[in-house]
């Protein structure tokens, strides 16, 4: 499973690599990272036609997670990537907006990695 984590906080990368240490080692999951929405779009363009799960923060300088989501949905690439949104503002309105725009799931910060794992492997 290929996962693209989009977050402007660089430290999130180490956290993911450590949390999914075993899974990575076992080859069950593969992580890529982007620090902004723009970088994420570049990565997606380079890895077109690959099945990628996108895990994106919403609040980022420049292109926000919501905008990234909108871009991805509009491009309508095949296969359709799975997009999961993460935010510190866990209010219903943001959640509903993300879901109505086509997000597949919605997670709150701080991340519960146990829960995240479950959800990832369900996919």
């Amino acid at each position: 499973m290929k996962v693209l984590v989009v977050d402007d906080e660089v430290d999130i990368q180490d956290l993911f690599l450590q949390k999914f240490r075993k899974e990575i080692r076992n080859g069950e999951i593969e992580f890529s990272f982007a620090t902004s929405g723009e970088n994420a779009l570049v990565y997606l363009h380079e890895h077109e036609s690959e099945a990628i799960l996108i895990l994106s923060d919403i609040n980022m300088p420049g292109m926000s997670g919501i905008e990234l989501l909108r871009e991805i949905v509009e491009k309508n690439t095949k296969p359709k990537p799975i997009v999961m949104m993460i935010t510190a503002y866990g209010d219903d309105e943001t959640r509903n907006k993300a879901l109505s725009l086509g997000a597949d799931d919605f997670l709150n910060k701080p991340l519960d990695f146990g829960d995240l794992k479950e959800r990832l492997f369900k996919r």
Partner: protein
Amino acid sequence: MRLLAILFLFLPLGAFSQKNEIFQIDSLPKEGILLDKGWKWHAGDSPDFAKADFDDSKWEGIDPTKDIFDLKNLSKNGDIFWLRLPLFLSQSISKESLIMTIKQSGASEIFLDGKLVQQIGVIDKDKTQIKAISPGREPFSLRLLPNQLHILAVRYAFQPNIKYGTHFANTNSVLRVKINSLKSWHIEDQNQQNETNWNIVVAVIFATLCVLYFAFYLFFPSQKINLFFAIYNGLQFLPYGFSGFFTLKNVDFFYGFSNILIFTAVIASSFLLLAIYRLFEQKIGIIFWLVLILGIFSIFFSLYNYQWGWVVFGIGFNFSINLELFRIAIVSFLKNKKGAWIIASGGFIFCVSWILFLYSNTKGGEMELISNFSYALAQIAIPISVAINLGYNFAKTNISLQQKLLEVEVLSSEKQQILESQNEQLDKLVAQRTQELKASQAQLIQSEKLASLGELTAGIAHEIQNPLNFVTNFSEVSGELVDEMKEEIEKGNTTEVKEIAQDLKQNLEKINHHGKRASDIVKGMLGHSRNSTGEKELTDINAMADEYLRLSYHGLRAKDNTFISDFKTDFDENLPKIEVVSQDMGRVLLNLINNAFYATKGVKSPLVEIKTAGVENGIIVSIKDNGKGMSEETKAKIFQPFFTTKPTGEGTGLGLSLAYDIVTKGHGGTIEVESVEGEGTEFIVKLPIQTI
């Protein structure tokens, strides 16, 4: 006006007898004898006509004392004619010296028994050379011998083109020769001198009043009534002045001037009437216009219609004017108009004097003094009463002014007291209000700080949440790593253990880093809420701008999750650190950035850009948005305290005002704004390296 009287004047006739057309003088009455009978006349010129023995039996009889308009046969255009009168003096008056006075309308040469005794004016065959003279009171001696027949012959011619007055009844006499004793001539002359003196008195009165009224008008032009009185008195001066100061012997000049006086008299009377109307606040009614029309008619009648002119002018116009004046005065008096009784009295005196004058004239010479006096009194009664009224009004005005002045003085002293006590109260009130204002200002500034703190809180919450999440997540994962490490130690997998230990160390560093990060944010928050200590410290403005940009963005985002805006930073990496009061400068940047984000609400592709750059002796920080921009009007007011474009309750209106004070007064810098409506706004803060 004098002329009117003459209508009623019955000229007294001296005792005389006439036999066989000889004018016989038996006695001399006081008033003398007028030679009005026994005359014969003949057109043509011959030296023989002067001779005593010339036979004039075929000549026609004539009374030359009659008016020239009545003697139509006489040529008025300068043709010479002769008059002859046989005179006989009785023995009884032979001892008296005889004086002859002559009034005439033409020029004459008087012959007594064939000898030329007097030449009055110039008679010439060239008619243009004829000069008519009337000597008036001038005496000529007449040597008549008693009990002897004398022949008085007069060579006579009229000066052509004289406009004789028509308003004088029986005045344009062809020739009035009067014989008097020297004694009675003196008496008569004295009477005439008196008349002249009265004229002078009246003239002086009119002149004085004219000057007086004109002065009143000159120094107080809004009172037009004074101008009217000045005109009236000035015009009235003319007839009295001229007949008082000059003896008009030139016949052409006399009549020319008399005709002008008719005109001026009508104007004068009209102005008097106007003035009286104004004085008693009467409307100019039909009566005024009727009287004025009568006046205009009387001018034409006087010039062209013999015997009617002076009737229309004298009785019609002049008397109507005085009656109307009297009427107005009475009406005003009944209405209790101030001073009307004075004018009414004047009118009454006029009427009484006039009647007295008419009566005294019927009595002839014996009442000459009364006649003159009453005539003058009639003429000046109204002007004098108007003058007295003027004085009366002035006195009234002065008295009322004095009273008003007293009232004003009393009032102003009262007002002064009131004012003083009000001033005292006002001073107290101002002091109290100033105190209150200072208190509320301090409160407002505190509120503004709290408000900006409020704006910060949400941003801080987000900012603090991120590092706390890391602390949580990294400590959690570190726990998992320790478990894993234990397993690997038991397995004896040293390489793996080392790797895990390395990660653990890294994680601890991260926990430490994010802990500190959270701690810094808390410190910053506390710093913001605390009152400024005013201490300056070297500060990295780039870091500060970045920090507050994030705080502001997240703060706004937390408050309103629909808010989305892009932001860009362009920081000068070589920007020198400068000394600022960090809480204060942080507040400035936060305010400017918040405003920039606020301005981009609702615009397409909202963007806030923050730029720093080093300049000579300082730095600049530019905060630019692509928002709504500002009108010139708004731009002019934005640094004023309490000015805000935000809805009520959302802004204190103190943010920019405080920012301005902090930058300029606190740091010696400048803050400028450039804005285009619909395009965006840029705030440029310039700070010197060595701030004050």
